[in-house]
């Protein structure tokens, strides 16, 4: 029988088997100076014990995690888009359009082993303020597996105020492309290291959704959602992030203002989502920098970001990681068979602007493969053409 979710016992066993082997190796030189645009590519064909080992090697290739996380609070934004009970056919979300729990557990485990003091798992599940653990359980994930993967693991649903007393304000350096700043759940400020743990997918609105687009979900729907009030944040999220897709309303007055409010409402461009969403994403990764980008492409889907886009299950067998989200996504785009230098009108950005170009424009990182050092499996060897399968 095919295993559809990692049982706690199997997960821990997997940790013990391969994490132990990997960790028993001679210590790698840690935190050595590496180019900011180094990206590691690993091949991994199943969500089994090998995930810990492959990810561990990749982190080594990036120079090790210890210098980044030792003694720190690490926040990990997961990719759990959509509803917990939606599947691509009969396949659970972890192997199609969510980051897989095995990759989450392996990351938590490796961060803890590298000395992270506290690890927070974050996501803003669609249309709900329920505890993140309950959302996970609904998808048949076992939150205890993550608690057992490190000494101090916490969960927070960041789709509303959550455990915070107030929202944290992040200004976009240089003034931003869509908004001058964003109000986010406190967990995105109360951390020393921010990790984006994404899935390798295309996206109906933004062309691709990788480590940068994953950060679109850090915006709380109490402020940026369809049902947000006009003046102040709502108490609970109502609806999704429709206003970013339709540009049909502005956030409450309490939130940082739009760069140009005139492009909203009746002046919104044709296909507003393809204009607004990439800009918001670029703003967000500029305002809330990603220290470690990880992309799960072991198994995934083509054609869009979730089953609602009409898609196909594929197994590229890839993991990608880097300390710069633009460079990491550029490698991801290349591995998907696209040109990371492509822009609006060219695949995968046929109907939208390139988030990579916009983020590059904001100085977040480079998308030019010539300036990115790819370590591990070469792109040419690992490429999995999403439009040809």
């Amino acid at each position, binding site marked *: *029988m*095919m*295993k*559809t*979710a*990692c*049982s*706690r*016992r*199997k997960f821990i066993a997997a940790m013990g088997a391969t994490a132990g082997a990997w960790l028993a190796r001679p210590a790698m030189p840690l935190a050595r100076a590496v180019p900011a645009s180094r990206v590691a590519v690993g091949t991994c064909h199943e969500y089994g014990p090998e995930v810990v080992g492959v990810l561990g090697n990749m982190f080594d290739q990036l120079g090790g995690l210890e210098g980044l996380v030792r003694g720190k609070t690490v926040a990990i934004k997961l990719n759990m888009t959509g*509803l917990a*009970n*939606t*599947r691509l*056919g*009969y396949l*659970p979300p972890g192997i199609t359009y969510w980051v897989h729990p095995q990759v989450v557990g392996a990351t938590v485990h490796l961060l803890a082993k590298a000395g992270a003091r506290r690890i927070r798992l974050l996501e803003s599940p669609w*249309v709900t*303020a*329920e*505890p993140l653990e*309950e959302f996970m*359980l*609904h998808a*048949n994930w*076992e939150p205890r597996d993550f608690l057992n993967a490190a000494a101090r693991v916490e969960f927070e*649903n960041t789709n*509303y*105020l*959550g*455990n915070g007393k107030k929202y944290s304000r992040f200004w976009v350096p240089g003034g931003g492309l869509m908004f001058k700043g964003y109000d986010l759940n406190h967990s995105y400020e109360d951390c020393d290291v921010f990790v984006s743990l994404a899935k390798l997918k295309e996206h109906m609105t933004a062309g691709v959704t990788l480590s940068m687009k994953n950060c679109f979900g850090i915006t709380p729907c109490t402020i940026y959602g369809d049902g947000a009030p006009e003046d102040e944040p709502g108490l*609970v999220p109502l609806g999704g992030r429709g206003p970013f897709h339709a540009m049909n309303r502005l956030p409450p007055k309490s939130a940082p203002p739009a760069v140009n409010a005139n492009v909203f409402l009746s002046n919104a461009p044709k296909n507003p989502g393809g204009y607004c969403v990439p800009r918001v994403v670029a703003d967000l990764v500029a305002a809330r920098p990603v220290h470690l980008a990880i992309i799960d492409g072991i198994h995934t889907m083509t054609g869009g970001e979730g*089953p609602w886009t009409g898609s196909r299950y594929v197994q590229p067998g890839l993991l990608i990681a880097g300390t710069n989200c633009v460079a990491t996504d550029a490698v991801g785009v290349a591995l998907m068979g696209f040109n990371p230098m492509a822009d609006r009108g060219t695949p995968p950005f046929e109907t939208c602007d390139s988030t990579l170009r916009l983020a590059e424009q904001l100085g977040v990182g480079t998308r030019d493969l010539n300036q990115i050092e790819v370590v591990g499996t070469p792109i040419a060897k690992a490429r999995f053409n999403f439009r040809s399968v």
Partner: protein
Amino acid sequence: MNLDSKWVPMKWPCGPLEIARRNKSQSINADLKEMLEAWGQPSALELLKGTPINCLIVDWANGKPEDSAQQQALKPLLDAGRQLGISFVGKVALKEGPGAAVAAGRAAGLSAVMLADASGQSFDLPAILQLEREKVSGETASTIFSTKENAWPGLNLDTMNGDTAMAGPTASPWVNSNGWFSLLAGKLAPGKTLWLDFDPPDSSNLLHPANYGLAIADSRAYGSRWIISLDDGLRAGLTKGNSQAKGVWGKLCKAVAFFQSHSEWEAFEPQGILAVVSDFRGDNAYLGEEVLNLLNRKQVQFQIIERSKSLQARSQDLKAILWLDKEAPSAEQHSQLLDFVRQGGLVIAAAYWGPPEVKPTPKDPSLQYMMYNVGEGQMAVSEGEFQSPDQVAVDTHLLVSRRNDLVRLYNPESTNCHSSIDPGHKKRLVQVLNYSLKPADSVTLWVNAQIGSARLWRLETKDALTLRGVAAAPGSDFGLPPLSIYCALEFEGSNL
């Protein structure tokens, strides 16, 4: 003669009373009149040959001048029906005492009468009482009783935009179902049989027939029976031998026959780790009923405890008790509830009745509850009165935790399910219903037990298929084939 719980009832409108009623409502035309007359003829009973339908509900007395003509006109039908083994129940709707009408019914060979109010009278014929929902109880209900105020099951037509179902605040399409009420009635009037009285929507006609199979399944899956009621177009089509009408009728009969062939499931008990306690009366009725409706819609499997009953006899499997009413528990119930909590249970209520020295701690910020740790368990106390039934249902599911789910549906669309278990706890049944007219594709049923296979029963086929499970710790996933109306998964084992 006694009421027979095995009767499969069907409304059989015909004769002078029905024609008079239609005349009054100006809904009659020549074709309809012809059909109503035809259905009063013995030959109309040919339709029932080979079907499980064995009990016809006919209008008997309405206090109208046509009463006598009706009773006279039905005599040949009743005589012919008896030859075919069909029982007749005469519906008596009189403002004055029904004694004479009942006596006439007995003389004519009725097996029973259906009355809105027996008022303590005794008759020579058994009576099926028609009760308002809020008056159902063990004392008021006859061995077989019926209720009105029921919904035609399916997507709520008021929330449809063309063929598209509009989601409500719960992000799920709004669905009408009588399932929760069947469960409630089963608890309020234990051992008695509920007949649900409801008619097809006005939009139902031969070209776009109502979802009759769903009306049957939504009743049977939850332990009641629908009084089969056909729309005029279908009945007219059947009178004329229309092939499309025969097709609709054939499917309906097949659905009834399916449930008749699985009558052993009627003894299965609803499963649930949550007990909902209320008297479901008066001011408590709306909240109690809606919470049941919404918990069911969220696939939360529950048991019902009528508030006046002792909690001592509660199921050993219970993990949580939701006390809905404003009224505090009796001294005995208070003691039982605290015992339950001390032993590790969870009680959810709008007021705290635990030991005064226990100080509360806040729950997750998304939940407006204070938690009191008492012994091994907890009391979750709402920060205000219970008001919104949807919020109570959502909060209850989260407080009990999805960790304790017995079943889950993935890609549920407009499907729902009901889990029950045989008295010996050797067989478990999960019945899945699709409330949409569109087939539900790629639905996965998750059950909280590690089970390798299940028997899959469908209305369309006589024999069961074996469905393999996929391990999905701590339970198992079962991918369902495209689901038009209904399927049931039957599990066997010691770990159910």
